[in-house]
């Protein structure tokens, strides 16, 4: 099919990459702003009286009024939004209704914990998925490949909290190898930190790894069908070498893309895993804030999660641009 005449793209990569990255960051900022509107709107249609819920039944109307004034709940919503979002940008998420402490430090502490957990989960998932997914693709018609496929299928079907419960039951309570939960910051004791991280990270990573390995398998299968793989073989590369030199990097592009989707799945998976393993991360904080109807805290946490997800999307986008030169000069 004929296409419009395209002036032959001059390879001026440096400028292209910078432009692409800058444009992505611009879009990211815009996206975050709209997302903040969504979060604020969603959470400010809460029915019921925040103040009364927080103060309990002995509170008088005056108490309620002063609570509302103290937390600025008596001002028009646009003003509240403006205050919240400008505060958010400067790292001030307001004062928690229930703990009466600033929200931001709690959220940041919890965020660190969750990030470590999610990071460990992704690491485990990737370490499982890349080799196994590739193997399953290469050996797709052989018994071991089929077996790998089946195992990963089964892995996907197990909810991560069930995996968590079973891991606790076997390795913590049953065998006593690991603690059943809790959290130690790495600075406070690296051994304890690792021991406590092991099971929840596994619970997260195993299931995500199973899913990611399916994507990897699909991506590698796709790549193995590509023309340039045939070219590589025609050059005289052995199948394995062709896959290593030409296939894997190409297969990585869709896998990296999927990782961004996987990341948000992991973050939300961490919410559940944190409750199972009593880990003071964002998930635990969120669940408690929801229980306490601590609107301002919920708002801060949700916004953080959303920014995080968008940020990872941005990073993945940029990573793809770096891996795939075609995206650099994309329109």
């Amino acid at each position, binding site marked *: 099919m004929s296409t419009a005449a395209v002036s032959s793209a001059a390879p001026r990569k440096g400028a292209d990459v910078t432009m692409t990255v800058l444009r992505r960051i611009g879009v990211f900022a815009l996206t975050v702003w709209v997302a903040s509107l969504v979060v604020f709107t969603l959470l400010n249609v809460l029915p*019921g*009286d925040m103040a*009364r*819920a*927080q*103060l*309990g*039944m*002995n*509170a*008088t109307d005056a*108490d309620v009024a002063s609570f509302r004034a103290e937390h600025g709940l008596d001002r028009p919503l646009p003003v509240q939004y403006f205050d919240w979002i400008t505060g958010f940008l400067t790292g001030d998420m307001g004062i928690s209704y*229930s*703990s*009466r*402490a600033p929200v931001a430090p*709690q959220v940041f*502490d919890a965020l660190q914990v969750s990030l470590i957990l999610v990071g460990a989960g992704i690491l485990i998932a990737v370490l499982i998925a890349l080799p196994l997914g590739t193997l399953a693709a290469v050996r797709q018609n052989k018994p071991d490949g089929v077996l790998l496929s089946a195992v990963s299928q089964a892995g996907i079907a197990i909810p991560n909290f069930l995996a968590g419960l079973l891991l*606790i039951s076997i390795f*913590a*309570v049953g065998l*006593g190898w*690991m*603690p*059943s*939960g*809790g*959290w130690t910051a790495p600075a406070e004791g690296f051994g304890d930190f690792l021991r406590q991280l092991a099971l929840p990270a596994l619970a997260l990573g195993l299931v995500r790894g199973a899913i990611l390995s399916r994507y990897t398998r699909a991506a590698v299968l796709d790549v193995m069908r590509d023309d340039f793989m045939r070219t590589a073989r025609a050059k005289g590369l052995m199948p394995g070498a062709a896959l290593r030199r030409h296939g894997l990097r190409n297969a990585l592009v869709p896998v990296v893309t999927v990782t961004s989707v996987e990341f948000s799945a992991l973050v939300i998976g961490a919410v559940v895993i944190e*409750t*199972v*393993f*009593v880990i*003071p991360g964002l998930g*635990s*904080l969120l669940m*408690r804030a*929801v*229980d*306490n*109807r*601590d609107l301002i805290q919920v708002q801060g946490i949700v916004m953080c999660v959303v920014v995080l997800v968008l940020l990872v999307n941005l990073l993945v986008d940029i990573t793809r641009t770096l891996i795939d030169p075609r995206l650099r000069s994309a329109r």
Partner: protein
Amino acid sequence: MRTPHRHGLAAALAVAALGLTACSAGSEDGADDAGPAQDASVSIGLAAVPANLDYTTSGGAAIFEALLGNVYEGLVQLDEHGEVEPLLAESWEISEDGTEYSFTLREDVTFHDGTPFDAEIVQFSLERLDEWTANTPDNLAAIDQVEVDSPTEVTVVLSEPDYDALYWLAGPLGTMFAPDSVDDLASEANGTGPFTFESYENAVQMDLARHEDYWGEPAGVADASLVYYEDAAAAANALRTGGVDAILRAEAYDQVESFEEEDEFDVVIGDTQAVAVLAMSNDHEELSDPEVREAISLAIDKEAVLAAATTGHGTILGGPSVPTDSYYQDYSEERPHDPEAAEELLEQAGVEDLSLRFTLPNRPYAEAIAQVVQDDLGEIGISVDLETQEFPAVWVEQTMTNQDYDLTVVSHVEPRNMINYDDPDYYWGYDSEEAAEHFAEARAATDDADYASAMEAAADQVVQDAPGVWLYNSPNIVISRDGVEGLPEDDLGVGMNLSGISVDH
């Protein structure tokens, strides 16, 4: 720093007992062989999470349970039998008409930040009660003013006699605060108690450290950590895997048996002040009919409720008082499980197709109770819709404050919660002149016997009117690993005193 002392087992037990009562007598004797380590630390698993540290404005027993008696102290405290005994006040006198309480204060007490404790502090703390929004400050509404007689003498003047006043002063309402500290009660705790407050990571862990300059018997452990597990099974797992040394107020009822079977764990089942009560809204047309309420009472199988909620641990109740109350009477046989009779009653009342909205806190015990009740009421033709509400936030707002419910259930852990039947505005909506008279009599009582008999009469009246169904008094389950001694066995509805705990290595 004192040198580590070694105690024999007997001595250890003695210390433990002393610790519980936290009496002022020193027991620095008996230094020998292996025993509790002075520099030991203990970590204790708990279920209920403090929202913050300020129990003057934040509801929930978890805060004062952790802080009262450990960090904060009042003029008086409850001994292990629930009797009032001296603490920061060495002694007191009550005027003939019961309206003036004169306390003589200890002299050598300072707050952890160095503020000296004196009569001014008492005046400040007790006159500040009108700023409280949580933990039923109305229980001490009778306090009119506090007069400073001398630095160590203070008189609390009541506007009318209240026999319960001392009792309430032994609880959170009687806490002594340093005036400079009240601005950040939510995040700091500055008291006179045996532990200093170190840190609180919200909903995760609270760290207390022994206050070395405590005026009384120093705490048995150097550090105490309260670790919070909202999920009972997680707490039990933590105990099993060495994450904590003990769990207090354990709700993992199902696991009690398996812990009892294991040698390395000790299980103690103590008392609580808690009353699990199924409240029936007086605003509801059919439910305002005593026959219908009676029928519902008869329809509920309390054995089944107890089995479902606590696997049978605890005491089945028939009335609003608990066994540890001085005015306790056993009403459990009053309305035995009798579905047929219940059905007949309903028929008599001419009620058909009754459909009720049951709001319940999202707590395992409440969900278990609700499902049994739903089932039981279904048997007699009452259909029940369950509506789970987050506890405390939503339940307190919707059910308790707005009183928007037909049926609800909650375990009232606050002590002597029966007096709320004297408050027609309480969510129970109970309003009885007869009962009110008895409650007034009780307040005006000047000795225990009068008080108890008046309260008994009130209880009789309440039970007769059946504004709710009293289900059970839950047990206080304490599970600890071997070697941890001196844990508070009973939950008296005040703080849990940790100073008596000792840990064997």
